[in-house]
Every structure is written in C-alpha cells, then in structure tokens.
C-alpha cells in the first residue's frame, strides 16, 4: 500500500492504454484544481455517487450560453474545485487549427483555468474544463482577443459542425466547411442567446459516409449527395479485379439496393443508377474506379437525437436533393421555417424529431411548405399508408 490519496483511481493507470488519471495527475503538478478534481473523483468512486452540482451560471456579458456552471457539493473537502466551470469554445470549422492558435488557446487556459481540456466535446467545441466564476469574463476577453468565441449550450442552437469535406476529402459533394461557417455566422444570436424550447443541432457531412454523424446527432442534418450516374472508370474497375478484389462479393452483393452487376466474362460493372440510394459503399471500396455523379448537392434530414428525455432517433429525409450554393438562401429559409414551427409547437425540452412524431409529418410538412415525397417513407414496403388531407383527395363515384 502506498500513501496515495487516490488508490481506486490509481488502478486506472495500469495497463498499456492512455489514462486520464495519469494526465490529470500531470496537470495537478501545476494546478491545485486538478489535484482536487482527482480527490473528489476518488470520493465518488468510493461513495458511488457524483459530487458535482449543476451551476446555473451562464457566464459572460451579453451571452446566455457557452459556460456550463459546475460546483463541488463538498467544497469543505475540495476547496480548489468549489467552482469548476466549463467553457465551450466554438471550434474552427472542420477542426483545422494552426499550431499557434492551439498554443494561444492553451496559454489562455493555463492562465485562467485548470489547464485541462477536452478537444473536442461531442458537440464539436473545444471544451475548457474547470475555472472559477471570477475568471470567466477575463478568460472570455482573452479568448476574444485571440479570435475565439464561445459556442452554444443550454436551450440554444449548438455550435454547428462539419466534416473536413473538400479541404481534405475527395468524396465531398458539397462545401461542408463553408456551409457550416455560414450557418455559424448567420445564426449567431441563436447560439449565444437561448430562446428555444431545447437544444437544436445542425451538422454538415459532405457525403453519406457522414463523418460527423449528422444523421444520429443532429436535429437538422445536411448530407452531400449527387444526382444522376456514378462516374465509372472501366479500366480502373478492371485494375481492382486484377489486383484481387472480389467485385461481386465485396461490392455488388453488399450494395443495399442490389443495383450493381459484375460480369466476370467481359469484366464490366453495370450500375442501375435509378435504384442506387447513394449509400457510398461501392465508392468506398473502389475509390479509383468510382466517383460521385457530376450534379452535386445535398439531402436535408431532420429529427436525429441521442436518448436523453425520450429515446434516440435517427434523422430522416425531408428534402431529397437541394442544390447548395452560396449564400444558401433556400437552406437558411427552410431552417428558419422549421425552427419557427418547432419553437411555436414544441414543449419545453422536446426535440424537433419528437415533436414531429407527436404531431405527425403532415402537420410538419404543411407548416414548413414541403411536399410529401416517397423518400420520406421511413420503412419502405412495411407501411403503405399515407394519411392525406381530406381536401387533397379527389372524390370518385363508386359504381
């Protein structure tokens, strides 16, 4: 037995993998808050309950979000974490930093906070963990000076996020970075001044591989896609076959809509593009041979969320194809109509997807002015019923 104050946590340093305990101990050499953080966590492991209190404080002047207040419920034992607030810093779109920006961010946090960071939180923001109430405003001022702003928290628009898209990825069908940046700038007030029934998330993936998990995590997902035929380079297809790729087994048989045929005899690949649902599978397997179609745009989806309050939902398509070009007026108009309907009808802490499920797609579609289209059928071939508005039905005489 050593005289360690954290014998339970020390267990988590064993083994070959990285350990948050090791990291926080390192921070504790400089910061008493980090030491008390560990000590309080040790007590939680012993008591099997959390010792954090929800704060209430929202931070800095003019802002209603971006700071998440946390207090120890045992400040008598752990005075250095009496207040241990989190600051959410709006990350640069696509998480592209220059190293000097990162250093600046860390210097500011060494000056004002515990030095502990979480890059990045699941919302996307750079999370700065642990500071006191007195440091919030000066820290924010230094962040502003360095060109950073706070992100969203609470019942606000959360910091929009996007995949790296065209900056690094050959599959990008849209400029996810620009769309995300424009959303962030256009919707500033919604991010900083919470007025919604609950959180609202916008995420942009430039293709259906969905590297930011927009489908699972955002109320409004923008997903790059194409119209028309997948671009095929037959010579490259044959090169894959020559290199040993089992095109029938690995590509055609795994196509979810079974719209591809590989002929071993004449070594050609046929795609029935009309049935393709642009899932990206074949392009992922044969990137040199197959490229997205030439007419690019995005599908717009709504309704995704994690399990909190009610169960988790995956988002579903409401606009199969939207051409997305700056200044994205059609997109931002649609977002405004959707948010207004949700704000008007949503209950407190009800997410968009839950509201649509409660009131029905037809109410949603009517309110935001979208037509019902086949792509909205959630489980094709299992529920053929569509409930029409009475006035839309042509009355026919039954003979």
């Amino acid at each position, binding site marked *: 037995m050593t005289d360690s104050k954290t014998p339970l946590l020390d267990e988590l340093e064993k083994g070959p993998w990285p350990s948050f305990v090791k990291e926080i101990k390192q921070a504790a050499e400089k910061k008493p808050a980090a030491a008390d953080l560990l000590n309080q966590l040790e007590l939680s492991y012993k008591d099997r309950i959390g010792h954090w209190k*929800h*704060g*209430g*404080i*929202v931070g800095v002047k*003019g802002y*209603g*979000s971006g700071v*998440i*207040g946390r*207090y120890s419920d045992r400040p008598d034992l752990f005075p250095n974490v009496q207040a241990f607030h*989190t600051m959410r810093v709006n990350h640069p779109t696509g998480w592209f930093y220059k190293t000097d920006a990162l250093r600046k961010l860390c210097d500011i946090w060494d000056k004002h906070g515990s030095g502990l960071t979480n890059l990045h939180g699941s919302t996307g923001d750079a999370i700065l963990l642990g500071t006191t*109430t007195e440091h919030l405003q000066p820290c924010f001022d230094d962040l502003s000076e360095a060109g950073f702003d706070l992100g969203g*928290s*609470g*019942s*606000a628009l959360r910091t929009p996020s996007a995949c790296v898209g065209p900056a690094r990825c050959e599959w990008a069908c849209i400029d996810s970075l620009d769309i995300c940046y424009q959303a962030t700038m256009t919707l500033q007030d919604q991010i900083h*001044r*919470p*007025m*919604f*029934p*609950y*959180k609202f998330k916008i995420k942009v993936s430039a293709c259906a591989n969905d590297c930011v998990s927009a489908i699972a995590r955002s109320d409004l997902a923008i997903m790059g896609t194409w119209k028309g035929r997948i671009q095929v380079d037959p010579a490259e297809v044959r090169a894959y076959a020559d290199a040993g790729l089992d095109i029938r087994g690995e590509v055609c048989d795994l196509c979810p809509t079974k719209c591809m045929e590989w002929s071993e005899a004449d070594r050609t690949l046929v795609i029935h593009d009309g049935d393709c649902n642009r899932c990206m599978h074949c392009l992922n397997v044969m990137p040199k041979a197959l490229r997205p179609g030439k007419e690019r745009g995005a599908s717009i989806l709504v309704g995704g969320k994690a399990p*909190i309050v009610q169960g988790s939902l995956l988002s579903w398509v409401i606009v199969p194809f939207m051409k997305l070009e700056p200044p994205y007026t059609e997109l931002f108009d649609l977002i405004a109509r959707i948010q207004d309907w949700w*704000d*008007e009808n*949503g*209950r*407190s*802490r009800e997410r968009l997807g839950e509201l649509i499920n409660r009131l029905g797609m037809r109410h949603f579609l009517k309110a935001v002015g979208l037509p019902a289209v086949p792509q909205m059928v959630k489980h094709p071939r299992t529920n053929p019923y569509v409930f029409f508005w009475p006035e839309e039905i042509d009355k026919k005489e039954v003979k």
Partner: protein
Amino acid sequence: MSAEIKERVLAYFREKSKGDKKMFYIKDVVKGLPDVDRHAVQAAVKELLDEEVLKYWSSGSTTYLMLAENFPKDA
C-alpha cells in the same frame, strides 16, 4: 408597445416567483401572455436580460429564466 410588453413580462415573473419556484422556461412566459405574439415576448425577454433585470439559469443542457434578484448567490 414594447415597454408595455416588458412590463407585463416582468409582472408575470413577479407574480409567479411568489412561491418556491423561481425558474421558468421561455415557453411558460409565452403561455403566460397568451394575447401577445411569441416573438414579441421573446424580444421583451431579451431586452430584460440585457438590462440584467432577468437572468438566464442554465443546467448546461436546459436554459431557464429568472428574476436577477432571485439568482443564487453562490452561482
């Protein structure tokens, strides 16, 4: 017009804060002024926030509104 709405929003908070409950959802406030347009109520609330008559209270995931005088001292 907007001054009158602000006055009524404030009256709502004063009346509702008489009990133990001090924190309210923006939706509660909108419901409390049923004859006023939702956007106008929100605008009035924002002004009162700017004037620090009202304050936000946030758990991190959910945001509430309260009279500044009721905001917890240790927070």
